[in-house]
């Protein structure tokens, strides 16, 4: 049986691929409630990771001709990524469970031998209280590292801390 190929770091020069329009998931004409998702990627010293590649994927709204579901953003000198997308609604979990609205995030960067996966949930969503993944994180402070907070009109902020103090919960998917 073949075995999955090993990962290697994306390195500091991935911008050769970059098309900044990919950070706008509404560019093909998606309709619905739009939101900006932003935040900083920070290293173990709290310093910005200014060369990261942040990717998002959402299973809702379903990908279509007008909504790619996938986005890619660089990080700026402050380590900040920024996406414009459509707000997801709840999606089914396993069994009869319902998942709170969320966006999957993959951080690739120099110094990461593999991508790091996490999620952005939205503060104040009633379903956050029963979401199976959030409930599986026993420490409420750690659980909070997956919850974006309002940071202006239709703008949500989630900082991603790769290491140490308030380290983001990264997922083994």
């Amino acid at each position: 049986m073949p075995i999955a190929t090993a990962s290697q770091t994306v390195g500091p020069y991935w911008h050769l691929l970059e098309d900044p329009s990919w950070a706008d998931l509404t560019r093909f004409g998606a309709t619905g409630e739009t939101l900006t998702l932003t935040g900083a990627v920070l290293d173990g010293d709290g310093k910005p990771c200014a060369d990261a590649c942040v990717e998002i994927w959402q299973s809702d709204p379903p990908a279509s001709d007008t909504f790619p579901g996938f986005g890619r953003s660089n990080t700026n000198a402050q380590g900040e990524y920024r996406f414009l997308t459509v707000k997801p609604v709840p999606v089914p979990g396993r069994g009869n469970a319902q998942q709170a609205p969320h966006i999957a995030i993959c951080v690739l960067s120099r110094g990461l031998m593999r991508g790091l996966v996490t999620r952005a949930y939205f503060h104040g969503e009633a379903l956050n209280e029963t979401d199976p993944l959030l409930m599986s994180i026993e420490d409420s402070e750690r659980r909070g590292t997956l919850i974006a907070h309002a940071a202006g009109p239709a703008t949500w902020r989630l900082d991603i801390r790769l290491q140490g103090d308030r380290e983001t919960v990264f997922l083994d998917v």
Partner: protein
Amino acid sequence: MSNPVPFRPYTQGTQPDYDTPEYVGTRKRHPNQRLHPMPQTITETTGPSFSPARFPPSEDLTKNTTGKAALGERIIVAGTIMDEDGQPVPNTMVEIWQANATGRYDHPADQHDAPLDPNFKGAGRVFTDAQGRYRFLTIRPGAYPWPNHRNAWRPNHIHFSFFGPAFATRLVTQMYFPGDPLLAYDPIFRGVPDEQARDRLIAQFELDLTEPDYALGYRFDVVLRGRAATPMEE
């Protein structure tokens, strides 16, 4: 009820650890906590699809910058993308980026004192066919120094990005060249613990891929995660 069939876990030792101390860049960027286990849901078992109509392929990196020929040794890189069941992964996007023949990236962060080639940007995009095969034409990239440790040089390599059918099958990696003496000293290559898994990152020279009087051929086959054999029971 919605229990999508998950993708199987990676085989132990075949993926690098986040904490790879010899690669200095990992020291402040690797998580200290273990990854949090979770069952895959619809979010992880679905993923983006890219159409060539909207994301046009660019499979000749030797000419895709100005239209004039880039300098260096032309090579053909081709291979098959399959999953862990040996099934081809058709119609999936492959992104490629690399240094030029002198070992310099056309990127503002690369200050290595080696010449840029105005005719070589070093980026391309291809799609697999119905049998999971891809192919592109490029310039053999040069080695270059990097500040990881004294006299550190990256072996010749081409960066690859793969998507496959799901968010869970995303893969970013690097392809190396056979016989490169720098591989033995490279902490990124050596960061894959399993020797066989590491060696699968090295392309194979293949005379049949070579185009006579034009370019040498290298084969780089890639395997993306496969689905678990049976759905997990709740």
